[in-house]
């Protein structure tokens, strides 16, 4: 086990930031910590790295107790923070070289590592730029490069794609997948469920410092009480027909959004009646476009457990 966090409790006076959090991350996997803002993801990372003390529990990394002074363990860890931790006074190359130099003493090796990191995040042509001249996405990529240039075995990424354009986000996610393919262990925190679904082997969903569920994406979505949801764009449909569909066996709900002309039919779990729905529409000469079938998402699971969305704006 690369990361073992057991019964971690962290309190800030009256506020319980982490409430008996448990985490186990295996070698070579991408492990996601998913939860809304303020749920305790960053606090969990800070406890994991002994950046802050905690009131109960213990942390082991690579089977060894983690502490503030355990430099041997620190050498194996790379951190990519939510806030961009680079110096505006240094160029891209200098930034990477500076942080890499804290781990790698040999000049030649360091130079090669820095070169690799620059190539890895695709910033070769920006290497002489100062961070202030870079776009938000490129700064995020530089942040990533600074955290991984020394080739750590465990990489912790704390919301590395916040406020990033789609192209850079894609780039960063591809980088992370590449790191995992190279045998690195990754702990990835985010509040974007799509990212977790895309890259994580296993995950924990957190809220208010507590673990809500953990497992693979499939295992967690299986926990949802809801079934599939079918959405179709229909320009003309009667109230009677909407009612008829709603009363069909296996259908949980049927709503029509007249403004956007969207019919939304939710089925009970395990009762996929898509053929039945298509038959009813066909019999009533209802034409439709853009029909989509959606499985329950991590957000649905979160919503069912907590009664709120993972993201406020979802």
């Amino acid at each position, binding site marked *: 086990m690369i990361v073992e966090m057991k019964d971690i409790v962290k309190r800030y006076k009256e506020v319980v930031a982490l409430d008996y959090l448990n985490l186990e991350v295996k070698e070579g996997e991408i492990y996601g910590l998913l939860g809304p803002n303020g749920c305790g993801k960053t606090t969990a990372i800070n406890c994991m790295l002994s950046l802050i003390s905690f009131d109960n529990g213990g942390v082991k990394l690579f089977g060894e107790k983690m502490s503030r002074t355990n430099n041997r363990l620190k050498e194996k860890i790379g951190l990519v923070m939510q806030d961009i*931790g680079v110096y505006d006074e*240094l160029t891209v190359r200098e930034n990477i070289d*500076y*942080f890499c130099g804290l781990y790698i003493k040999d000049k030649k090796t360091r130079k090669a590592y820095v070169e690799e990191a620059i190539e890895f995040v695709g910033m070769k042509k920006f290497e002489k730029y100062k961070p202030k001249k870079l776009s938000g996405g490129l700064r995020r990529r530089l942040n990533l490069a600074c955290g991984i240039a020394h080739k750590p075995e465990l990489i912790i990424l704390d919301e590395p794609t916040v406020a990033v354009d789609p192209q850079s986000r894609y780039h960063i996610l591809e980088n992370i997948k590449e790191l995992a393919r190279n045998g690195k262990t990754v702990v990835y925190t985010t509040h974007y469920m799509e990212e977790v679904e895309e890259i994580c082997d296993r995950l924990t969903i957190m809220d208010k410092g507590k673990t809500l569920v953990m497992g693979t994406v499939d295992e967690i979505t299986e926990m949802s009480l809801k079934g599939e949801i079918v959405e179709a764009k229909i320009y003309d449909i009667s109230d009677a027909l909407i009612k008829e569909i709603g009363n069909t066996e296996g259908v949980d709900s049927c709503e029509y959004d007249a403004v956007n002309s969207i019919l939304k039919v939710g089925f009970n779990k395990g009762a996929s009646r898509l053929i039945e729905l298509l038959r009813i529409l066909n019999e009533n000469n209802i034409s439709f476009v853009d029909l989509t079938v959606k499985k329950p998402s991590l957000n649905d699971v979160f919503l069912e457990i907590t009664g709120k969305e993972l993201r406020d704006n979802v």
Partner: protein
Amino acid sequence: MFKHLFSYISKIHVKSKDGFLFSLLLPFALGLVFLFAFEGLVIDESKSFDPVKVAISIQGNALEQKEVMNFLNEVGIEGKLENDEIVQVNTDTDGKEKYILYYFGEESTVQKLLKEGKIDSKVDIDNRDNQMDISLYIHPLKASDINSQVVYQVFNSFNSSYHTTKDATVRLTVQAFQGRDLNFVEPLVNRVRALGSEDVYINEYKERINPEVHYFFVSLAYICLYFMSVGIQIIRKNEGYSSATSKRLMISPVGMGKRVFTSFISLSIPALALMYLLLFFYWKSDIGLSRDYGSVILLISLGTLVSIFLGMAVASLFKMTDDRADGISMAIPIVGALTGGLMGVASLQLKIWIGEKIPFFNIINPVALVTDGLYQLSLYPTYNQFYQTISYLTVYLIILVVLTAVGIRRVKE
């Protein structure tokens, strides 16, 4: 590792707006402003120092008298009596600073001169019993004056050199001039005996201080304390809670002590270099700063280091936001300068009041310590009080280093 850290920390510091503008350019500019402000206003006090008039009566053998005269010729000028006034026999001082204008006379004449207030002090030297007794009489009205201290220091120095070279003892006693208000004798004697203590120093300030000289010294001391902000920066750039970059440093395998030490070296060298450059300009401008280069550099270096470590100790012991750090960086030097007497006569009075009521505050105020040190170097005939100030600063520095070492070991979250 040191080289790697040192080169990058220096580069970041010099290239950053905070580092270059606020840590280097601003104090340097302030120093130059003070220089221009005081240039022409302040003259070298030691050059215009009027030798203290002392009348001496000696009873004993000729050899011992010669010893005394030889010594007095080193630190003083011989005088003669003209119309009941002591005047210089020879105006040539051999380029040396002269502290006293001495006149050898009959005991009765000397007594008369003191009674009439024509001299500051009367000195009786008696070596008839194989024991040199020096009795120093000070006119009560001059008791609070620096002149009485100068005379005491001169004869105290004689005492020391005589003891060293002759392996003999000199009995130096201080007495108030008898025949006036007797109630004044005891406090006067205590005061003079306590030379080197804060009390005497404060009284000297009251009576003799030249505000321009004081403002000039305190302004230089204020620039030293300005570097407290550098100390705060050193810690904050390495404390994980303060920024994302410092958090990244925090999880690196380079220990906090090593990082703080390297940052201290990288940032304190420019600060010290800047102070030395300012001193160079001050000396070049012939402003009233002591020409004892080594001592001034020692004092300013200690003052700057104390200020840097004061910032480091505060920042390492207390968690602070950027705004609070900025506030502390500005507030403490200003309070230090205010209580050190930088801001006008009221501020000077405040320093005197603090010296009388809460003298400890002056010992923990680097501005007051450095100011006192500069004053002592420029205006005092011996190094006794200066060494005391240096020892205060050294102890203060050691305490701050220990506090910083304790502080950086604490986890702040």
